[in-house]
């Protein structure tokens, strides 16, 4: 089983992830722009748009969702509404996470955070509006000839579980509460959940079987956590190994702070191997698997900047 995997990995070298990704970013930005028109009362739409259409958004969830949908021969038109929804609910979570009563973060991606501009009350409401808008967008815009309704209900369930009390809300809670056992779990929840959900939703929309969805679930989670671990390592290296009191930008737990660079690199290597292992067997679907391999490599080597 290793030879098809090797050939897929070698075509991964030829595959131009940067073009694939940046093209999808442009598509997504356009679709999100249309999905949140400014109406009365304008300030809530402006507040929603401010976070969803923030400059430099990588659209990693949509890219993952579209790629896994296409792997199973799905039309990307089937995946776009859900891809938009993933960005909406993710933005909603981040807006609420940044609030003064939560992480109290005045900025996000170098821009003032939502409540800094629109006030705490509007930030609460913008989040409360973006969650349902995501679901509404899926229901209203997914072409019914491409996706049967039972699949759509599974997509909605998947997203609801991802942002809910056992998913990202749980991650945020554990992060706030702290405690030695909670932190690792919190990171998995906060950073593995979206990626996992995006992969599974794409698979659902593309028509994947249940065992394939299980693989995508593990693959997506590994890629999401891998990305974060490598982030922590890169941040540590930028600081020049001064791990004393030079507090990094990020609050909360970091693999590096917890285990040191060496161990974090080991964890990254394990996650990389695990993510690729989960893709074994998808070669039968042809070159569609190549983007999924390339996401793993990108998470590690960050060969280019997408924003």
């Amino acid at each position: 089983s290793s030879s098809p995997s090797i050939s897929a990995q070698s075509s991964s070298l030829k595959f131009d992830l940067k073009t694939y990704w940046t093209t999808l970013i442009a598509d997504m930005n356009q679709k999100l722009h249309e999905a949140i028109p400014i109406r009365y009362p304008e300030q809530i739409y402006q507040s929603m748009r401010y976070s969803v259409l923030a400059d430099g958004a990588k659209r990693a969830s949509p890219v993952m969702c579209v790629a896994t949908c296409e792997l199973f021969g799905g039309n990307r038109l089937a995946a776009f509404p859900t891809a938009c929804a993933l960005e909406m609910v993710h933005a909603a979570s981040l807006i609420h996470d940044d609030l003064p009563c939560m992480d109290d973060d005045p900025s996000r991606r170098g821009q003032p955070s939502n409540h800094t501009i629109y006030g705490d009350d509007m930030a609460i409401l913008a989040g409360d509006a973006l969650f349902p808008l995501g679901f509404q967008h899926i229901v209203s815009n997914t072409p019914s000839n491409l996706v049967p309704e039972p699949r759509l209900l599974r997509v909605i369930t998947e997203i609801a579980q991802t942002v809910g009390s056992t998913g990202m809300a749980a991650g945020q809670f554990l992060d706030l509460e702290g405690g030695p056992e909670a932190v690792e779990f919190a990171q998995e929840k906060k950073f593995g959940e979206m990626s996992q959900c995006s992969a599974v939703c794409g698979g659902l929309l593309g028509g994947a079987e249940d065992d394939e969805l299980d693989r995508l679930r593990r693959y997506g989670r590994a890629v999401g956590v891998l990305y974060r671990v490598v982030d922590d390592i890169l941040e540590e290296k930028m600081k020049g190994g001064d791990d004393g009191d030079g507090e990094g930008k990020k609050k909360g737990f970091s693999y590096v702070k917890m285990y040191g660079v060496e161990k974090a690199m080991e964890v990254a290597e394990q996650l990389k191997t695990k993510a690729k292992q989960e893709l074994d067997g998808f070669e039968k679907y042809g070159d569609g698997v190549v983007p999924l391999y390339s996401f793993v490599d990108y998470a590690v080597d960050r060969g280019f900047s997408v924003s």
Partner: protein
Amino acid sequence: EFDEESRKPTFNFKSYMLQRAESVNQALDAAVSLRDPITIHEAMRYSLLAGGKRVRPVLCLAACELVGGSESMAMPAACAVEMIHTMSLIHDDLPCMDNDDLRRGKPTNHKVFGEDVAVLAGDALLAFAFEHISLSTVGVSPARIVRAVGELAKSIGSEGLVAGQVVDIDSEGLSDVGLEQLEYIHLHKTAALLECSVVLGSILGGGSDSEIEKLRTFARYIGLLFQVVDDILDVTKSSQELGKTAGKDLVADKVTYPKLLGIEKSREFAEKLNKDAKEQLAGFDPEKAAPLIALANYIAYRQN
């Protein structure tokens, strides 16, 4: 308190409401179990199971049965609308919003669990409402469930509930808020979810498009009615009678129907809304429509 104004001697509204609220409470209790992380689920359950009259879920169940469905078809949706209602109350009570300490006679969610948990518990209830309706509705075609999900989403977001809250916040302290804007606030802030409850019930119960639209109009009238009566109660009742802070509309300098129309005219307006609402039910089987008629009367004549 429930049997006041119930019309037909054959229909006992009080026992109907108590029995219905009991099934809803059991379904809610079962739906939101205590899981890890415990604190979030405790916070969700604290507000969700704090009593309340369950008007929205009962409307949902009654509408479902009116168009020929059974209770089980609409129960997950009935729970979902109550989760959304609870979530909006939790967020509304936060210090950065209405800053309320008391709700349904108990300390508000953030007073007990802290603001951070209150925000998360609200978000989790919102998400769970969608999970529950998508995953747990049985005996209904997937097409109808999808339609119900879309309806719920639209009702509670920036075209519905949230829009009402935004305009409400904007209107505080303004002296030139007119009837039109007041009606906008209430049609979105209160009526949207009541309307959604009825529409969800009628979709899931198998109603025809024309039945669904009639019931939508019915619900819109009683939604507005609900708020007019709320405004009247806010100035005529004490905090203890209401189980929440009375007179807070006055303190917050909010525009209300009594302020714009006076108490008497507000009461007349409530009468008219109740009458208009009931006219929408004229074409339905009177026996099956009895619960909705009684609910409209209850909303019109309730004392808290």
